[in-house]
């Protein structure tokens, strides 16, 4: 397990933001954390990165105890914050150089890591341009590039695609996939875009009111997405796999006919994550 959290509690005075949350995240996976505004995604990521203290609970990251081994954990992880984390008047290269040096990188190591980060995010062309002159997409990429400098085992990305166009979004999602595949980096990805999470993540959780409402691998999620359930008049249920060939379907309906039952209700699969999300988090508007 990359991250193991038990009974994590965080409150701001009376407002309980994380309510005895339990969560495990597999090493090498891309973990998607979905949640409406104010669900507590950033709060969770901030605690994991030591930006704010927790009130109770136990956290283990890559086998290190959060309470005792802050230094080890910090050196193994990297955070890409929700807002831009670089100096606008410095060029991409100067920013990378500064943050790389803070990671303790020197000379050749520093140049190598900068080159790697620039290559992964395809920023080589813009290396000597000032960050303030970048478009939204380039800024997001620079934000990610800075997060790659220390070759993290765990990379936290807090809503890295907010406010950019579909092309850049798609590009960034693929960059993240590439990082995960080439380095085996565990990725913690928060977002409220369902489609992104569905496309990107192997492991998906929905956070709301400080609790994990749902946590499944994408495989499991997909498995259910073509099973329709028939509620029959004798109170029994029959599942039909919509992807199987017609013969199987015909069999099911013959069986129903033979027993002279009728279908009381047809339940179609919760085929999209969006349906699931809305059914779990209700439709009320969040502040």
């Amino acid at each position: 397990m990359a991250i193991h959290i038990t009974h994590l509690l965080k409150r701001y005075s009376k407002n309980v933001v994380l309510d005895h949350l339990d969560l495990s995240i597999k090493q090498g996976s891309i973990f998607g954390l979905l949640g409406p505004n104010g669900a507590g995604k950033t709060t969770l990521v901030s605690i994991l990165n030591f930006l704010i203290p927790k009130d109770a609970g136990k956290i283990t990251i890559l086998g290190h105890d959060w309470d005792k081994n802050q230094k080890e954990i910090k050196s193994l992880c990297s955070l890409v914050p929700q807002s831009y984390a670089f100096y606008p008047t410095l060029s991409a290269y100067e920013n990378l150089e500064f943050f790389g040096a803070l990671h303790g990188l020197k000379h050749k190591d520093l140049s190598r890591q900068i080159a790697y980060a620039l290559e992964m995010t395809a920023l080589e062309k813009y290396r000597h341009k000032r960050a303030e002159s970048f478009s939204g997409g380039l800024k997001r990429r620079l934000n990610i590039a800075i997060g790659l400098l220390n070759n993290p085992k765990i990379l936290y990305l807090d809503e890295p695609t907010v406010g950019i166009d579909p092309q850049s979004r798609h590009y960034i999602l693929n960059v993240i996939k590439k990082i995960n595949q080439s380095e085996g980096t565990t990725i913690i990805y928060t977002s409220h875009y369902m489609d992104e999470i569905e496309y990107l993540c192997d492991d998906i959780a929905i956070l709301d009111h400080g609790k994990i409402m749902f946590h499944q691998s994408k495989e499991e999620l997909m498995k259910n997405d073509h099973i329709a359930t028939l509620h029959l008049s004798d109170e029994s249920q029959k599942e039909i796999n919509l992807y199987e060939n017609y013969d199987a379907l015909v069999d099911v309906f013959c069986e129903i006919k033979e027993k002279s039952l009728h279908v009381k209700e047809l339940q179609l699969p919760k085929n999209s994550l969006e349906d699931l999300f809305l059914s779990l988090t209700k439709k009320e508007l969040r502040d």
Partner: protein
Amino acid sequence: MLYHTLKKEFLLILRNQHALIVLFVMPTLFIIIMSLALQNTYANKYDVKLNIGVQSESNASAFGAFMDKLNQNQFFNFRLIENETVIEEALSTKTYDFILSMTPNFMENIVKNEEASIQIISRSDVAYQQVAFLKQFLSLKMAEMVIENFSTVLNLKSATQASFEEKITHTYLLKDNHPTQITSVQHSVPSWLIFSMFFILIPISNTFINEKNFGTMDKLRSMNIPLSGVMLGKFIPYFVMNQLQVFCMLLVGMYLLPLLGGDALVIQGSLFLLMLISAVVSIAAISFALSIATISNSSEMATILGGTSNIMLSALGGIMVPKIVMPKLMQDISEISPMSWALDSFLEVIVNGGSFGDIQHALFKLLTFALCFFSLAYLILKYRRD
């Protein structure tokens, strides 16, 4: 790591044009303007004489001698004017600064110790000191006339005012007994230097608050960097910046100002002490700026909070208006401003050629001030962190 931290911070300052203007252009202009403006307050010389019109119905030849006597001075320019001259117009057009109106037969009567008087007429906006000085000057000249007259009558060698004045000389006493003239440059260079050094606040709070409001501070805190490293990374570049200001402003005083018709800056004391004071002032200014930056939530807040307190401290501390022209009460009040401690130390070295013993007390106060504000900033940052 330190190298790259410094490099980053320097690049940020150098690309912040507003900050550069505040740190270098503003004090240069202030030094030039204020040195030239205050030149006469320090040196006892007047390049513009006051014009004084004299109305009199006295016998012309006797009065002519008195006028000659009056005109033997470097401050006033006396001229006879027609009795029909409209006084109001002469004053309001500033043809004359003062009009003197004398009673008939003024000369004859004054020598005979009979009824004679002078009325001084001026606009309402003249400096009171000028009136007082003119009155004193006239009474002296009248006394001289009377004495001279008696001397002639008694056939004595006259002792004129001029010869009395020669008997009184003025020397500024300096620590190493090298007498020189105090100039306005010696006040304005350290004054505006201190003022602009405290404005290091602008770039410090700009970068600091940007780090806080963007994700940069979060990113930095999620990394393994000790708080002391963050603070040191801020302190050193701005310290260097401050010293660069010192260097530049000394050059402005010594070389640029004379080209513009001002006096050149003369430093009586040791350069080493000057550097020591600069270092201490810088530490105080940066500590103060760091604490303002930590308590502010936006650049606007920092600029207003820091800018206002800087201007208050400087107005109080004798930066804007030299302490010598302040009344006693204000001089006492100015003692609470750290800029006043800084200015006193600088003046002690630049003007009086003072030694370490003369400035240690002020330096100690400045360091205490720095320690208080630095601790404040450190504690706020640390508290916010945990």
